[in-house]
């Protein structure tokens, strides 16, 4: 492998060594490899914001070549070489394909792009659209137990049909801040109710990730979801949350959830 820039050597070792972990932590996500219409022979690496220094690094395994762009102030942006003279630019959950250019300027590469396409595989796009349809249908509902039942069933069907990617996509939609607190809270309760061993771990992680959310309504949904999921691993975090919770009714609700998990 040829490293085009001297600064890349450390990053190269870091990224290659950590590639599987990067994917699990969400820094690196390449649905393109699932999509035959887009390059199958290329790869790229997202730089984690935790990596010291401001560099953007991309390499092509097949060609055994690498290019490093100096970058500053970027988020989840990366570049991937496609066969021929094209490159794929990744920005968050979006991508664009352009002709390769000769530059070491990060800004020249990324900041001149006007249109990015959603970075998502065909199958993920379908799941995402189905999830959005469900959220759109219930976004303005006044939830009661009947509506919550229907909403839970809709998400249940989606998750059973699509497995772990569906949970990941629901998590992405929650994090995009396009849903209101009520629908997120109901989503969290529904995720706890669903009886599906295949996705239980992913649903548990999603719920745990939101028990400290800024919104009390979302925290309440996460606490209820964990109670319905009935996974005693949550107890330690719930006990900590109980100590720090400042909303009185929610504090009591946490106590109820803890009691439920402890009792049986």
């Amino acid at each position, binding site marked *: 492998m040829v490293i085009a820039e001297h600064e890349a050597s450390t990053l190269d070792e870091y990224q290659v060594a950590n590639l599987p972990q990067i994917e699990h932590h969400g820094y690196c996500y390449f649905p393109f490899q699932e999509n035959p219409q887009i390059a199958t022979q290329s790869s790229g690496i997202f730089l984690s914001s935790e990596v010291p220094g401001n560099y953007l690094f991309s390499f092509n395994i097949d060609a055994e070549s690498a290019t490093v762009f100096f970058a500053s102030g970027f988020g989840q942006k990366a570049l991937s070489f496609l066969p021929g003279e094209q490159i794929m630019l990744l920005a968050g959950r979006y991508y664009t394909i352009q002709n390769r250019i000769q530059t070491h300027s990060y800004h020249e590469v990324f900041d001149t792009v006007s249109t990015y396409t959603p970075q998502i595989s065909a199958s993920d796009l379908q799941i995402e659209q189905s999830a959005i349809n469900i959220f759109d249908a219930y976004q303005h509902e*006044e*939830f*009661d*137990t*009947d509506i*919550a*039942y229907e909403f*839970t069933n809709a998400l249940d069907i989606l998750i059973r049909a699509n497995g772990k990617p569906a949970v990941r996509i629901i998590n992405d939609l929650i994090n995009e801040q396009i849903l209101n607190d009520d629908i997120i809270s109901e989503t969290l309760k529904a995720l*706890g*109710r669903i009886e599906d061993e295949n996705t239980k771990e992913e649903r548990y992680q999603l719920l745990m990730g939101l028990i400290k959310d800024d*919104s*009390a*309504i979302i925290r*309440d949904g996460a606490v*209820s979801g964990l*109670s*319905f999921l009935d996974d005693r691993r949550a107890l330690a975090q719930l006990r900590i949350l109980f100590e720090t919770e*400042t*909303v*009185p*009714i*929610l504090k*009591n*609700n946490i106590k*109820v*959830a803890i*009691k*439920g998990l402890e*009792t*049986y």
Partner: protein
Amino acid sequence: MPYFLRAIYSNIKWDTTPFSSWLKEGELPSCIVRDLRADDNALSLWEISDDKSNLLDIIAAFVSLRREGIKYDFDYALLSANHLDELCFTPLKKPAKTAYRDMNHYHRDVPNLSINNVVYFAYLLSRNGKFDRMGWKEIEARLKEAYTRGQLDLKRMQPELKKQLGIPV
């Protein structure tokens, strides 16, 4: 002095702390409207004994009507009877039709309410009510006990709930 139970969908909405940045002191958030439904202009309440010994059974009775299955916590507010007197509200006996037969006679209706009455009730509940949640496992256990004791009218229960309680459908 007995209490009256009002079922609510989400007790967290009655806690004004999260809305303190915009809600003026003494005001209520509009999102609680969902919990003030008054079919036939009557508020549905349940009478709870002084020692609250029938509380869990009454909640189990309420849940026995549901089609949704068991994994739903039950949020509620308790109001002391003397607070209802402040509004000159007169709860009338109106037996419910839940599957838990022995609990049905604890149901009360407060009839002939204007929207103003309902709003006053909301203020009263917000100021003096005790908001709480009963966990789904406690409700499940009590319904199973009631089933074992032959206290449930199975014809009134939905198949999904019976299935989750291990009751033959």
